[in-house]
């Protein structure tokens, strides 16, 4: 036995005298490493190419006139002022509906509800809501708000539909923010005799203000980019508002819906101009959430 082992190790040593220091080329490693580098490069290329292409092709088309007029079939000019107003309108109205619901829901889940079947059901349905594609929201909104409740193609019904859509985003982000508030804060408030609502109002909400704002900004991103759900609910009209309050009962297209309309009609230059504006909004939203994140980190320190 002993002789045998010794002999074998002798053979091994002779075969690869410096196997510990010299690394052999391994085809598997090389292949995998190469593929990873390739994939990373492709991904980077896709993102930069996509954004660059849109900005280069679209930005030259954006002019003050384009931003400040409404489209005119008579003069053959395009303007997106109605779309800007509609988009802002829909953002504000949707958040007015969804923010209290979402933040309230998160607070209920985190502060009031006991862990159990109900919270599990709520969390499951919230997940489900975020998985439902926008076209289903569109169909649903059309049936419930447009037809059943008689709102017709209107900005209001678009907002109601979108507020269901952004609800999971707001709930989840707010919940995460609530979880970072130390338990000691809650106990301290309770120890000082504060009631639950008082504690939520004066301690929890100020503490997770950044989280709530982030959730709203993320929702804005979703609203600005949404098209399938809005085509069926808010419609495709491009009228300037006559009255700021009755405007919500009329149909109105946002940026994304308008982009699709123009692309469908083959007016690609106008589509690209709108796409460039959308990309800039997306970039701004990305930057904003990042800044808030850093602000939060600085605060925590």
């Amino acid at each position, binding site marked *: 036995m002993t002789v045998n082992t010794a002999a074998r190790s002798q053979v091994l040593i002779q075969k690869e005298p410096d196997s510990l220091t010299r690394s052999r080329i391994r085809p598997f490693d090389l292949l995998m490493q190469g593929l990873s580098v390739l994939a990373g490069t492709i991904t980077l290329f896709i993102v930069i190419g996509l954004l660059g292409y849109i900005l280069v092709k679209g930005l030259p088309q954006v002019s003050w006139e384009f931003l400040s007029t409404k489209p005119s079939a008579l003069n053959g000019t395009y303007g997106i002022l109605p779309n800007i107003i509609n988009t802002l309108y829909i953002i504000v109205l949707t958040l007015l509906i969804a923010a209290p619901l979402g933040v309230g829901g998160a607070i209920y889940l985190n502060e009031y509800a006991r862990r159990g079947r109900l919270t599990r059901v709520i969390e499951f349905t919230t997940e489900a*809501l975020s998985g439902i594609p926008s076209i289903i929201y569109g169909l649903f909104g059309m049936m419930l708000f447009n037809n059943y409740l008689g709102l017709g193609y209107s900005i209001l019904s678009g907002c109601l539909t979108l507020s269901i859509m952004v609800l999971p985003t707001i709930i989840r982000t707010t919940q995460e923010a609530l979880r970072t508030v130390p338990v000691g804060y809650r106990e301290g408030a309770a120890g000082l005799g504060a009631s639950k609502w008082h504690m939520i109002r004066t301690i929890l909400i100020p503490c997770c203000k950044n989280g709530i704002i982030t959730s709203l900004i993320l929702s804005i991103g979703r609203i600005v*980019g949404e098209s399938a759900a809005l085509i069926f609910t808010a419609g495709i009209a491009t009228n300037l508002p006559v009255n700021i309050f009755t405007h919500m009962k009329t149909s109105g297209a946002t940026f994304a819906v308008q982009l699709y309309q123009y692309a469908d009609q083959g007016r690609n230059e106008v589509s690209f101009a709108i796409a460039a504006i959308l990309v800039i909004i997306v970039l701004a939203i990305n930057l904003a959430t990042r800044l808030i994140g850093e602000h939060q980190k600085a605060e925590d320190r």
Partner: protein
Amino acid sequence: MTDTKPAAPRAGLSKARAAKNAVELVMNIIFFVCGIASVLCVAAITFYMIISGTPAIKEIGLWNFLFGTEWAPTASDPKFGILPMILTSIVGTMGAILIGVPLGLFTAVFICYLTPKKLGKLLVSAVELLAGIPSVIFGLVGMIVLSPFIANVFKIPSGATLLTSMLVLAVMILPTIVSVTITSLKAVPQEYYDGSLALGATPVTSIFKMNIRAAKSGIITGIVLGVGRAIGETMAIIMVSGNVPNMPNLFKSVRFLTTGIVSEMSYSAGLHRQSLFSIGLVLFIFIFIINLILNTILKKGAKDR
């Protein structure tokens, strides 16, 4: 409590306490309503999808609807078969997964292990940006750039094909796959990797044979999320799929379940319109199944931990 205190302030105190309790109760109820809002929404959506989707199926017949191969709703002898759309949606999603998952997986590995931290951070922000880009933009660029390219390369008259749609969908699910994979790779304990190195494996072998296997359930979650996103995507592929209800063929124009609804909703009426809602119901059932699968995986993952 004995009656030694003067009566008046106690009455005031209890009044204040009663008011406070009332506020507490009201807020409690308000928060509860907010809490169950999402449950109510899901219930309402399910209810309405079923209510509006079933009449057409009843009239056409479930078998004819699901397995009919011809879609001609406006013909004099209307046909309502959505099998081509169902198959297109399934094949298109599978294609997107086949292209998107390897790309996303390798990108995630590249970001996590094989690149300096700064470049990795840049890539992560790039992928996050990609996630925020509206689907209409993907459709627009696909239509203007990718379609002609595909038409040129494969020498076909129109680039609006299933292949183009798959590529667009693959790019769209990329952020989901990458970010979920990165999260799960980061959750793999360092000891696994160290142990693998100590056993003599090279770093790259350790990453691919150890860490990726350890992060398997997270990666599968990402894939299922990607499937959900791809199967429900509408506005991007309506511009690149050509919108003809053919059986799935890589180099032909096709119509997905989602695009079928959008492209005909504006001029449909009667049974035609109802059948579009039925397509919505079929899509909804697909999404529901995907959600159930996701939930099971997540639960299993939680148990494993």
